[in-house]
């Protein structure tokens, strides 16, 4: 009887290859291939209908795609900057606390412990124009007597979404920056004080440069997070009304699973991923520069 004898390295690596193939390679190839077809989820045979770069051309000339693209970019910019500033402020304050700091740090993490879907529902309730907490509060205080359409007006809805996003994730920045604050050597800070710096100048010229690597790590993590924002927005506005809060992934999700045009959705998905890659590369470059300037590089 003849038995096939494979070299041991191949035998040992095969399980890993199989897993990689199933989990990454096949979905990747399949989705990439389908982005060049007219594949519709409801009619599986369409996956063979090759239509070349039609889906990509269509996406790139689609005004809805570009407005979702722009809105996603805006959300990333606004949310990240707000989270960074608030997280920095929070971290600086928590770092000053001497008693109960551990408890505060734990409490700071609470928003991250909730499912984004539930956060979406909670903020949907808060911002509801009729029964919402916010409008009720504003009206009870006599600040307004109309029902502000928080989730209906495009600009207001964007603000509402940013608020929910910032509420959940500011602690990512706060925790990382706090870690940075603990890692700062005290000597240069004291040297700056002796050298004539005011507290603000000490922060600006010494503390902040030391914190920049931590800020860029948080930025890189959060830019990926926000660029794929879906859950909170889907719950709060579902990209509507009338696409006023449409983001890349709410658009892609609807195109793929509601309209069943999976080929087109995959094409848009690949373009969207480029955005995430650009953000990641950008922030990692910044991180490397900041580290090198502190002599931590190489």
């Amino acid at each position, binding site marked *: 009887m003849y038995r096939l004898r494979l070299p041991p390295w191949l035998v040992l690596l095969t399980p890993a290859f199989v897993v990689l193939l199933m989990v990454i390679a096949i979905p990747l190839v399949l989705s990439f291939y389908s982005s060049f077809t007219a594949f519709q989820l409801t009619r599986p045979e369409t996956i063979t209908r090759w239509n070349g770069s039609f889906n990509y051309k269509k996406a790139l000339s689609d005004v809805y795609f570009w407005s979702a693209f722009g809105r996603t970019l805006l959300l990333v910019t606004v949310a990240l900057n707000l989270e960074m500033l608030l997280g920095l402020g929070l971290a600086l304050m928590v770092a000053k606390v001497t008693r109960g700091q551990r408890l505060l740090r734990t409490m700071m993490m609470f928003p991250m412990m909730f499912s984004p879907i539930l956060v979406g529902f909670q903020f949907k309730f808060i911002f509801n124009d009729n029964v919402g907490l916010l409008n009720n509060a504003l009206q009870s205080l006599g600040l307004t007597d109309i029902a502000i359409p928080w989730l209906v007006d495009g600009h207001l809805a964007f603000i509402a979404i940013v608020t929910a996003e910032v509420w959940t994730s500011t602690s990512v920045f706060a925790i990382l920056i706090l870690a940075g604050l603990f890692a700062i*050597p005290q*000597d*240069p800070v*004291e*040297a*700056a*004080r*002796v*050298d*004539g*710096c*005011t507290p603000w*100048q000490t922060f600006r*010229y*010494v503390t902040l*440069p*030391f914190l920049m690597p931590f800020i860029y790590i948080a930025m890189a993590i959060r830019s990926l997070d926000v660029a794929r924002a879906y859950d909170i927005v889907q719950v709060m506005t579902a990209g509507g009304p009338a696409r006023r809060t449409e983001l890349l992934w709410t658009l892609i999700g609807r195109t793929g699973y509601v309209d069943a045009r999976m080929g087109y959705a995959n094409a848009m998905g690949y373009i969207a991923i480029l955005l995430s890659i650009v953000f990641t590369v950008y922030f990692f470059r910044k991180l490397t520069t900041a580290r090198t*300037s*502190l*002599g*931590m590089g190489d």
Partner: protein
Amino acid sequence: MADVVLRDVVKSYGALPVVHAINLDIAHGEFVVLVGPSGCGKSTTLRMIAGLEDISGGTVKIGDRVVNDLPPRDRNISMVFQNYALYPHMTVRENLGFSLHIAKRPKDEIVKAVAQAAEILSLTPLLDRKPGQLSGGQRQRVAMGRAIVRHPDVFLFDEPLSNLDAKLRTQMRVEIKRLHQKVGTTIIYVTHDQIEAMTLADRIVIMRDGHIVQIGTPLEVFERPVNAFVATFIGSPPMNLLPATVTDGALRLSDGTAIPLPPGLTARDGQAVQFGVRADNIMPEGHAMPPTSHMAFVDMPVTLTEPLGTETLLFGTLAGTEVQAKMLNPRPVRTGEVLRFGIALDKCHLFDAETGASLRV
């Protein structure tokens, strides 16, 4: 330039006092070294002068201003830290000019001041490097340069050489002394190394457990230590201390050896004392300084030798206590060899066995 006056300065952390009401007058242009074992409060004292620690009590005056409540930036002081404390993200040039930049001085003045400081400390070729690209000695020079560009009233040095290797430490010691001769600014320098204290100081302040034990010139504290602690702390090797009792106007060591009472010292009959003699004042016959009029002689077996070239350190045991002696123009000595040692009594010390206080009149 200014004088610095400390009046009843106290530092306590909560209920724990670490500096007990110390008084110190530092003259304008003086080089004062605070020295003592770790935990004696010397760094805390320096940091109070700098304004990096709150002053719990008393007053600190720099020039004619009481600075207790002034932040460090308003005290016109410069400080050199043990770990250099350079700004790692700035070049040497930016590090040197930082304080002037903060003070919003005109650009050409900053350029000039930086160039001058770099010249004094031979940093000119390194101006565009970052601290990470410098050796320990170069970093320490940058830290000193950063301190001198501002022409402060007072320089504060907090153990600046303790991170350097022995050879570099000796070099930098000379550079610091030279710097003081050149700029003439008041310097307050903290170290735990008595050699640094001896070589650098105009006056040495010896501290222990938050108290000042003795203030004096290097020779004063070396020749006339006020107690046994100063006697053993200053000088290398440390002074030998032998327990003894005063009997019939002579010292009797624990094994019965009698040594005449050194001149200039008073002790009650029957008083328990410690007899202090430096290695330089106990030497084997024939390998010693010319004998003085007050000599005592003892026989002592040698247990260990440390040849240093021009002299050899001899370890022996006298009345059950280890004693270090010096041998000039050394010859080889066998372990266990019994030598006759001469003790120069007029250079010896007596301390009260209980209080440690010197019995010199």
